[in-house]
Structures are given as structure tokens and as C-alpha cells.
């Protein structure tokens, strides 16, 4: 890279460019089984490597900010669109970028989910539908525990991260066994991190 600290780009996007941005997200939508974040590598390939619409720094910051903010993680897609728009000429373009990327990533998957859920509801007495729900239950429940594990070891499985693991374990225990409000726990985690204790 010639300019590693380059924070923004100056782009001229044509209608075809916006359309190809939209179509890229439409095509990723149906591939995003397990959440939109699973398709982030392909977004990086398209936006940063192929089209040069975003810098690496913008891409990484978009994901980090969306993870830190409240709400569904899919909002990192909105931030990517926002940054593409900013690079193409300012806040109005940014809003355009948000609309295009979010409509692209959400419309196919939500339409399919809505239709599937309606069908499943109408046919809930069907043996196959009941078998699907009963069969998938233990797997998706275990998947949640596995996700907790994956997230807490995301910083590497180095033993020096033991305070983080302890915090995750204690949190899990407290949420499981008590009725403490989740925001207290998040606040405590933020304070412990702020003072460098975890």
C-alpha cells in the first residue's frame, strides 16, 4: 500500500456503480447463513480489493464500531455503505450508500424468511415441520454456547487472556442463575476494561 494512513478516498460513482453495489449485497444476502458477518470477507474483497471504494482502515473501523454499538451486528453493512457514500461526495451520498447496502443485504433474506415462517406456521401440524423444529432445537441451543466460546477466545487462546475468560464465565453464570439486569454486567465489563483489569 502506498499510503497506509489514507483515511478517505475521492470517488466518482456512476449509476452503474451504485447498481453493482446493490447487486453485490443482494447476492451476498442469501449466502449469509449464520449471520451477515460470515460474508464480511467477501465484502472486503469487493469493496476494498476489487473496486477500491473503501480503504482498509475504513473497512475495519466500520466493523469495530458496529460491534461496539447496541443493536444487530448487521449494521456494519450500513456503515460500509455510509463510508462508500462519504468517499463519493458527502453525507447525502452516505445516506444513499446506507439505503442501497441495507436494502440489498436485507430484502432477499427477509423475504425468504418471512415466506418460510408463514409456510411453517400454516403447516405446523405437518410431521416434517415438527421434526425440523424438534431436531434443530438441541443444535441451535448448543450453537449459542459455542458462539460464546468462540467470541471469548477471539483474542487468541493465549493464557494471558485468562481475566477475559473469567469475566465471560462469571457473566454466563450470573445471567443463567440470577435476574440481574444485563446492562449492569455490560457496564461492569466496560469499567474493568477501561481500568485495564481485563
Amino acid at each position: 500500500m502506498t499510503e497506509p494512513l489514507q483515511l478517505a478516498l475521492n470517488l466518482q460513482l456512476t449509476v452503474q456503480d451504485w447498481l453493482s453495489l446493490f447487486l453485490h449485497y443482494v447476492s451476498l444476502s442469501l449466502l449469509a447463513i449464520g449471520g451477515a458477518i460470515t460474508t464480511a470477507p467477501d465484502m472486503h474483497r469487493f469493496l476494498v480489493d476489487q473496486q477500491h471504494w473503501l480503504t482498509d482502515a475504513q473497512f475495519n473501523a466500520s466493523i469495530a464500531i458496529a460491534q461496539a454499538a447496541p443493536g444487530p451486528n448487521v449494521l456494519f453493512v450500513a456503515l460500509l455503505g455510509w463510508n462508500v457514500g462519504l468517499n463519493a461526495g458527502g453525507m447525502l451520498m452516505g445516506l444513499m450508500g446506507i439505503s442501497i447496502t441495507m436494502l440489498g443485504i436485507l430484502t432477499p433474506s427477509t423475504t425468504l424468511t418471512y415466506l418460510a415462517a408463514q409456510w411453517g406456521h400454516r403447516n405446523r401440524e405437518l410431521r416434517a415441520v415438527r421434526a425440523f423444529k424438534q431436531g434443530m432445537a438441541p443444535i441451535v441451543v448448543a450453537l449459542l454456547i459455542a458462539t460464546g466460546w468462540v467470541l471469548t477466545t477471539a483474542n487468541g487462546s493465549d493464557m494471558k487472556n485468562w481475566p477475559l475468560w473469567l469475566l465471560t464465565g462469571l457473566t454466563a453464570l450470573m445471567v443463567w442463575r440470577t435476574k440481574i439486569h444485563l446492562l449492569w454486567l455490560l457496564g461492569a465489563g466496560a469499567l474493568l476494561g477501561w481500568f485495564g483489569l481485563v
Partner: protein
Amino acid sequence: MTEPLVSPLQRPTSLTDLFVSFTLLALQGFGGVLAVVQRELVEKKRWMTREEFVEEWAVAQIMPGPNVVNLSLMIGARYFGFKGAMAALAGMLVAPLIIVLLLALMYAQFADQPGVQGALRGMAAVAAGLIAATGLKLFGALQKNVLRLKLCIALGALCFIAIALLRWPLTYVLLGLGCVACSVAYKKLPP
């Protein structure tokens, strides 16, 4: 399990109730909204039982797209059809989108503060615990499962090993284990 039974199920009173409820859920969900959805909708508001929640989550998880977005769509549709789906979806996305934009505008000024980085790390560790705890709680919902508890635990353990320890791709694990589990369930269910 610990859950007190009997208290009757409730439901959202209106589209506004749905929208506001999901907005509040989304705004509490740092690092993932699922734990909050389970806590609020199942334990506090009692819109659905633990078993129903697992069923909806199974569908939301297997469909493409963001899982929690799928889940809110399905829960909204359950009570108010298409309008409900849109109200819940809007609740889940609009306010958080505004906040995430504000954060993005402020980010440049605070990103390099070590305290901020540390706080994010601490919150991420807590968020991981919230998700794991949601799984532990929903485990109780498997007691009535047609697969019986022993087989549920075996399937769950395999899933945990494949995803958490071996880091296999989610799609293959869901398809592979899912096919086995659903076929066994199909055989055990009365026609």
C-alpha cells in the same frame, strides 16, 4: 428447571407496542441482541414460552440473513402478520442505525484512547458470556424434546466440538448435524 410455570402468556398490544419493545431490546443489545430478546420476551414480557422461542430461533438461524433481524421479523409476523413483521424490523434497525452513525462520526476522535479500547474489550467478554448463558437457559427447553435429553446432549456436544473447538464452517455443521437430528426426530414423531 428453575422457571416458575403457570403465569399466562401475554402478547404485544399494538404495532406501536411491537415497535417500541423491539427498539428498547435493540438498544440494550451491545455485542448481540439475542440475550436481551430471550430475557425480555420470554422471561419478562412472557410473549412466548422457552420452547416456542427455541423453535423460532431454529428457523431464524437456518435462514440466510442476520439472525436477530430474522427473529424479530418472525416474532412480529406471529402477532400482526406482515405489518407486525415490518414494525418489529423497523424497531430493531432504526434507532440503532442512528446511534451507529453518531458513533462513526465520533470514532475518529476517541479511537486511539487506551481506555476506550479496553472498555470495548471488557464489553465484548461480557457479551460472549451473555450469549453462552442464553444457550444454558434454553437447554431447559429440551426436556420435552422428542429426541430425549440424552440424544439432545450428544448432538449438542457434537455441535459444540465442531464449531467451538474444530472451527468448522457453520453451514456444513448445521446441514450435517441438522439432517441427522431432523431424520431421527421424524422417525420418532407420530405421523
